[in-house]
């Protein structure tokens, strides 16, 4: 299953929010939709889910315009919220039914998800009696219980403690492994880096960067080395004059920048021979660096 955004345009009143957004994502992998606040991520997601129509462009699924009757969406909105005064089980079944499930199927799916996330004991409790993290797990079930084809997770990790974050990671991996197309939207770049094979960065209503994350990183000039060693000061004195030395914040490592990537193998072997090196590698830009570069 391949999802393609082709030149999607949308404006609200006078304000142009999306100006020809194009990107593509495939099932069985996770796609990261990045952008600063107000870049148009939520608008793109809402257009994808047919909450409102685009002014121009189209969304294709496997090459054909998307048929909303056939594709199931699961959505974890950034603004969390369900019915605080209603029983958890009842509202979860309700949402699964709204997505087209039969009542019995919905009930058994909800029960198995409640068990999977360790929430079975809260089945008949009211939502507002739960802690914030647990409410978030309940909200996650609304996105997954109806076995959707495309899952959209907007800031899924915010507000979770490390144990729950790990549980969520396992669940997300499982969902991806089941052949789902998962779309991530987050400001927490480390999670995107961990999960997403492809990304798109939205800025000012346009996609300023998109593609395979590994390739994007690889496309950056590979003229920087990161070195961890106890002999950094001695190394600094011995470096050729055209190599820039920059100590990192922790004091135990440094970044060396060469004028061109050609000599990096030579320099790496020379350094390994002459000094006691704990670690040396070609430094790739982090997603954070890339994001800051493109979205500011």
């Amino acid at each position, binding site marked *: 299953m391949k999802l393609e955004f082709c030149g999607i345009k949308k404006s609200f009143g006078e304000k142009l929010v999306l100006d020809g957004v194009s990107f593509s994502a495939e099932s069985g992998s996770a796609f990261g939709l990045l952008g600063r606040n107000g870049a148009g991520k939520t608008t793109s997601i809402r257009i994808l889910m047919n909450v409102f129509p685009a002014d121009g462009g189209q969304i294709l699924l496997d090459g054909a315009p998307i048929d909303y009757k056939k594709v199931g969406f699961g*959505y974890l*909105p950034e603004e969390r*919220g369900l019915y605080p005064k209603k029983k958890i089980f009842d509202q979860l079944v309700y949402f699964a039914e709204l997505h087209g499930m039969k009542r019995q199927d919905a009930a058994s799916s909800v029960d198995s998800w409640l068990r999977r996330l360790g929430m079975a004991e809260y089945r008949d409790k009211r939502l507002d009696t739960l802690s914030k993290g647990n409410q978030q797990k309940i909200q996650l079930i609304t996105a997954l219980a109806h076995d959707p084809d495309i899952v959209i997770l907007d800031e899924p990790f915010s507000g979770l403690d490390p144990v729950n974050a790990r549980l969520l990671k396992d669940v997300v991996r499982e969902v991806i492994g089941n052949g789902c197309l998962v779309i991530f939207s987050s400001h927490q770049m480390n999670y995107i880096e961990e999960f997403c094979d492809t990304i798109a960065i939205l800025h000012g209503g346009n996609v300023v960067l998109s593609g395979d994350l590994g390739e994007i990183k690889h496309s950056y000039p590979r003229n920087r080395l990161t070195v961890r060693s106890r002999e950094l000061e001695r190394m600094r004195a011995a470096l050729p004059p055209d190599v820039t030395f920059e100590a990192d914040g922790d004091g135990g490592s440094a970044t060396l920048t060469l004028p061109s990537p050609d000599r990096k193998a030579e320099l790496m072997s020379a350094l390994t021979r002459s000094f006691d090196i704990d670690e040396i590698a070609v430094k790739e830009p982090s997603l954070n660096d890339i994001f800051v570069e493109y979205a500011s």
Partner: protein
Amino acid sequence: MRRFRTILGFELRGYFTNKVFVAVTVVLVVAIAAVLFFPRASALVTDIFGDDAADGTEEGDESEEINRDELPLMLVSAPDDIESTVIDSFSSAFLNYNVKPADTDDVDAIKKSVSDGDAECAFVLGSMTSYTYYSTTNSLFDSNTMVADETLRSLAMVSEMMSAGISPEEAGSILATVIESETVTLGASGDGDLSGGVDFISSLIYTYIMVYALYIVILVYGQMVATSVATEKSSRAMELLVTSTDPVSMMFGKVFAACIAGLTQIAAVFGTALVCFAVNEPWWGDNMVVRSIFDMPLSLLLYMLLFFLLGFLVFAFMFGAIGSTVSKLEELNTASMPVVLIFVVGLMVVVFGMSSGNIDSTVMRVFSYIPFTSPMAMFTRIAMGSVPAYEIAISVAILSVSVFIIGYVSAKIYRIGVLLYGTPPKPSAIIKALRRA
């Protein structure tokens, strides 16, 4: 359609498991039953009490004497020649008083015993045709002087007639002349039956009850729809709902659920009333007020149902649309003010029309075609007067078409409104957005 049913089911479960909803319904049903069982229960209590009294005393007369002494004391002072006649007449006229001749002719002493509370009131007669009435209360409901006037007038007439040579028996029969009369109200009743007509007073009572029932139920359930939408929006459940289903199903599911809940409550209350009245009918005897309510024609109940349904849908859709434009529940009251005002004005006009007696005035006629006021106005005109069938048909047709138009526009506003947060949009902004949608 399936989503509509899912939403309808979910919302209905919400109503029927809502403790407040259930409690209010139960309280209303119990209260109605209690009122309608009251005469039977009080008769039962009196029976038991009465039996006890009879057991305790050997002669019925004596118990009457005792009872008579327990009544409030009314002192009567009159010139000696007429005193015994007046006392006898007053005793039979004032059954709720223990009528006694005053011990003294001293007016001050009589006034004192009234003001001290020894006697509740006193009549001091100067002659058969003039008296002074003393009482500590001057309540609106004190009809003693009217009764006294009537009694004294009869006495005076009898004595005049006797002095003119007419025997007491003849005088009595002259005074007892009965006028036989029958009132026939002509005009169409609700079902177009020209023969019977509608009795204004009795129809006034049940029309009042039903118009207020329409008003309360439409307003309460309409507000419930608005609150339910606004709650979903403020709790952000809306974010998920708009991506799970279409706004038309959501709006219609909610509105119809509220409608069914309202009908259930009406059916419970009115049903209890009908059953309890049927069970207790003999005990209500000739209480005209209560009888007139339950003698209301069936056709009128059906009209009530029709106008409730259509009127409710018009207002519930508007309330739903309003609920979707606010971000917080606190803003709901201000936002729904215009709609509530329209409705209140409708009620006021109808109530004024009813009490003035002119239910076919121009204002009422106009209001019975405007979709926001016609449920109450047209219903009142049908219930209390004669409305040609074509007028009813036109009114119902306008109302039905309005339901569809308002439902359609409301669903559009809803679709736009549910995703707007922050300050509620101005009406002009909504209209602009509607044109684009």
